[in-house]
């Protein structure tokens, strides 16, 4: 079920710290579209002050399955409530979760693997790559390692 909208609804999903910093470097690309953000700690919400809706879902990583579950539930509420048309993420775990959930809701997925992944793509990136509609990496040598990924330069 899709509702009529005037413009694309874009979900920006990234963990606090380097992930969100890298994502925000792309801010020119979604100018004019309806945007909401999903991040992991409240500390960065001020940084995201320009965006109308910011959801804080909490930190999680693969070492803490229970926390992942809690974040998953929060992300589900956001994804199913907002039903974005596109999700753009730089990771990490929470971004990855948002990509899969939004894909389930019919959204297109754009993944930009974090610049920290020099020798291989992040675990999240390798998973999201399978469902991504546009998958970008920030080191040229990674393009040879993975099918379907593109290199267009780095944001840092």
């Amino acid at each position: 079920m899709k509702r009529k909208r005037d413009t694309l609804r874009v979900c920006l999903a990234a963990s606090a710290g380097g992930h969100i910093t890298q994502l925000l470097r792309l801010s020119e690309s979604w100018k004019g579209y309806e945007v909401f953000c999903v991040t992991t700690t409240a500390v960065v919400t001020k940084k995201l002050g320009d965006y109308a809706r910011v959801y804080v879902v909490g930190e999680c990583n693969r070492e803490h399955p229970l926390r992942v579950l809690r974040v998953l539930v929060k992300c589900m509420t956001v994804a199913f409530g907002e039903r974005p048309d596109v999700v753009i993420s730089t990771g990490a775990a929470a971004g990855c979760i948002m990509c899969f959930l939004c894909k389930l809701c019919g959204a297109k997925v754009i993944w930009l693997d974090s610049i920290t992944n020099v020798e291989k793509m992040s675990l999240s990136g390798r998973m999201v790559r399978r469902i991504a509609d546009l998958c970008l990496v920030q080191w040229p040598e990674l393009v040879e390692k993975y099918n379907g990924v593109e290199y267009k330069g780095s944001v840092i």
Partner: protein
Amino acid sequence: MIFLTVGTQFPFDRLVKAADRAIEAGKLDEEICAQVGDSSYRPRCFEAVSHMEKHLFDECVHKASAIIGHAGMGTITTALDQDKPLLVMPRLRKYREAVNDHQLAIARKFEKLGHILVAYDAEELPAKIEALKSFVPRKRKAQPGQVTERISRFLDGLSGSENGPTKSRDLSSMD
């Protein structure tokens, strides 16, 4: 003032302790401002807070003559953006300081490019602190333009407009 920052997701006692020891040994006579996350080690030679509001964090970076931190991309980016000399110690998976060794990989890469200094373990820290005093980081020229353009093109393709966002698009026809 030297700003010590270790990020927030995991503790990083190894760095806080090594920095504390280095100061105790007289390696740094400057004032220290420290953000140490959930690290349980309590430094003897300087005051530390676990978390910092963004504006306080920015202020510390701005005032700092140099930064010592983990090799988190947020820290590296901040330092490079403001031309601050940065010394990092990468978090390592074997000590459960991170879920993988990506900090080691990025530290090596950026060290090779002349952007940062790296102490690969606590023993190396004092010598690297000495080097930090005269270190001039190589500027990094990022090219987000092409990445932005690629994403922009993708989004415009979805919204069905070559010239950017439209205001009268019915997305129900998209799929």
